[in-house]
């Protein structure tokens, strides 16, 4: 495959500083600025939602009004004016499309710049793509093949209309509307996202993939994803994110809920490359995301893998609630910050089930003047007989103006539970750098090689297609961090 043979140098050459800094000029249809009950009603009406959905949103909105933004993270968040943003923005021609041919060519060109030519992916990569352009799902491929297997993969707005029982049963069951400030906001104004349902005994025949992209200026993106894996089913879901370069900050507050039944497995991978702002910290996405999965059934498994290179500020803790007996939770994370970026990210492993096991591997890389914090909770409930956790948090510093922090919380209410925690902090050693330079490898490429080596344990958890992209991203994101 061509992509795999591309070298970091080539990519850097081809892409420059921020690969995705372009704006697509498509007339968009947006709600007036600001946030109030009318906007919530507007969104619901635009989406032709049933009454129960509107009620659910309004309940969330009222709840949100009573809440305050969390301030416990090691983040310096400038005040956000929620009234100075658009909450609904859809590409103009968003009527239902039967095939890709009907999609606005300019939109398709955008996807191509993003490196996801849908047509090609259809044939080559065997990946079904549900692309979210700003707020509305534009094209969904592979529907047919999936539906033959009984798999439902569609925009969540469609699911609300077509599968109301499933949505009503599960939406908010993992992350209740009032879970936290940003989740409540999302519940009130979410505009789109994906819905996945894997029936009993089905191994999803392909990897499912969604590309999110914020295009419209001043629009928050509030997507919402719900994945349900019935007994003995399996699904691997890939999420990629990019946003164009802008001077203003943009808010992204997504919610992702996963439900795994008995013997089911969900693998959720993210490569997040939202615009991080410039060298001086101007612009960039605020990525305040709530992701949680519940292992309801015995022996069920949920695995989160994330590569976070973008965003000005990241506030994100993909978590697992391990209810089932012998259920398994995994969190593999690479968080890279450069320039003025701030990241506070980690996971929560809540052990309730007997014999439940969790693994946390976190690799934090800080460069420039950035701050990178791992924050994680391992909670062993009294019922978690013989539960186990292994946590490894490694931090790598590039330069001497950045910071790395590790904040592990451990609560153990069951004496038979075992918790292991290992943490290291290191710098790129001069020895290693010189060794690479002496072989003729340029300094930035050398740093990229060494950092990618540092992340290897996490990268190998990513599906092949994603791993290649993630590797390149790490090289690009480190640009300007040395020398």
């Amino acid at each position, binding site marked *: 495959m061509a992509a*795999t*043979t591309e*070298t*970091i*140098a*080539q990519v850097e050459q081809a892409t420059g500083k921020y690969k995705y800094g372009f704006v697509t000029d498509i007339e968009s249809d947006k709600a007036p600025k600001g946030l109030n009950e009318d906007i919530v009603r507007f969104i619901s009406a635009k989406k032709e939602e049933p009454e129960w959905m509107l009620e659910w949103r309004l309940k969330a909105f009222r709840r949100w009004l009573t809440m305050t933004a969390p301030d416990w993270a090691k983040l310096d968040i400038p005040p956000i004016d929620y009234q100075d943003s658009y909450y609904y923005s859809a590409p103009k021609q968003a009527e239902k499309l039967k095939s890709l041919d009907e999609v606005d060519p300019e939109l398709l060109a955008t996807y191509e710049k993003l490196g996801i030519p849908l047509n090609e992916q259809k044939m080559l990569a065997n990946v079904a793509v549900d692309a979210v352009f700003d707020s509305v799902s534009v094209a969904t491929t592979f529907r047919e093949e999936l539906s033959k297997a009984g798999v439902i993969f569609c925009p969540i707005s469609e699911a609300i209309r077509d599968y109301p029982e499933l949505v009503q049963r599960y939406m908010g069951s993992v992350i209740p509307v009032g879970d936290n400030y940003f989740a409540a906001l999302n519940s009130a104004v979410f505009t789109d996202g994906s819905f996945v349902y894997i029936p009993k005994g089905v191994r999803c025949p392909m990897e499912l993939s969604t590309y999110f992209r914020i295009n419209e200026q001043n629009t928050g993106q509030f997507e919402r994803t719900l994945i349900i894996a019935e007994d003995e089913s399996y699904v691997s879901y890939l999420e990629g994110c990019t946003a164009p370069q802008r001077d203003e900050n943009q808010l992204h507050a997504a919610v992702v809920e996963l439900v795994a039944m008995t013997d089911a497995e969900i693998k959720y991978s993210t490569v997040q490359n939202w615009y991080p702002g410039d060298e001086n910290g101007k612009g960039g996405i605020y990525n305040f995301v709530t992701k949680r999965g519940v292992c309801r059934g015995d022996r069920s498994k949920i695995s989160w893998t994330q590569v976070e290179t973008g965003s000005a500020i990241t506030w994100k803790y993909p978590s697992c609630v391990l209810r089932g007996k012998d259920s398994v939770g995994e969190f593999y994370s690479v968080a890279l910050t450069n320039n003025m970026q701030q990241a506070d990210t980690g996971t929560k492993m809540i052990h309730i089930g007997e014999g439940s096991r969790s693994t946390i591997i976190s690799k934090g890389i800080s460069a420039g003047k950035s701050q990178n914090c791992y924050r994680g909770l391992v909670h062993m409930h009294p019922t978690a007989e013989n539960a186990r956790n292994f946590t490894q948090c490694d931090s790598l510093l590039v330069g001497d103006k950045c910071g790395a922090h590790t904040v592990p919380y451990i609560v153990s209410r069951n004496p038979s539970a075992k918790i292991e925690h290992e943490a290291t902090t290191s710098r790129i*050693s*001069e*020895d*290693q750098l*010189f*060794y*690479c*330079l*002496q*072989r*003729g*490898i*340029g*300094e930035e*490429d*050398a740093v990229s*090689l*060494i950092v*990618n*080596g*540092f*992340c*290897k*344990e996490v990268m190998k958890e990513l599906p092949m297609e994603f791993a290649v992209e993630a590797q390149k991203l790490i090289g690009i994101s480190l640009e300007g961090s040395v020398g």
Partner: protein
Amino acid sequence: MTALLEIRDLHASVGDKPILKGINLTINTGEVHAIMGPNGSGKSTMSYVLAGRDGYKVTGGDILMKGESLLEMEPDERARAGMFLAFQYPVELPGVGGMSFLRAAVNARRVEAGEEEIDQLGFVKIVREKAKLLGISDDMLKRAVNVGFSGGEKKRYEILQMALLEPSMAVLDETDSGLDVDALRIVSEGVNLLRDPGRAMLVITHYQRLLNHIVPDQVHILAGGKIRKSGGKELALEVEESGYAGIDDAA
């Protein structure tokens, strides 16, 4: 005969400490020179100075490769210009796959020369061939660079890199140390295969026996940051017999 490497009255310090105190040495194309000298005499320092390592400061003199001064060049530029150093202590790069590392190195050079980058498949074939000659197993090639390699394996891996990069000036810093007899023979054969009219080598060693395998054109004794004596390969035998005691420190 043209000079490939010319070291002229080279002075260098590490930190504030002067280590090299006026080295003069000329190596012509096609030649192999050996450097011997007591521990701490500045042999590795000299190799680092040639390669341009950070922290090794040239305080006087010049280094010319193919007639051009290296002093203003970064280490990676020197490497791409043909300078290669086989490290006395090769460095481990955890998680960095050997194949991608080797390919990055080879491609950096090719890009500089305006050549096509080599693709993965073609490259793997070339590496396998060269590795076989050096007794390097496929398993070793699959591992991270130098991680978990034995001392001798690391040295062989250095020579493999030299074979792939085809440098014009190769400095081998104690490549023989830590090698068993068989490995010494294999590595020496590998090095001899790379002897070439267009290439020069500087072999740093403590042992005369290496020079039975890699026969040098000249031998130099470095002590106290200066070259104290130069001669033919018989000088190595002399050292072997009577040590460095006879070398005049004050020369």
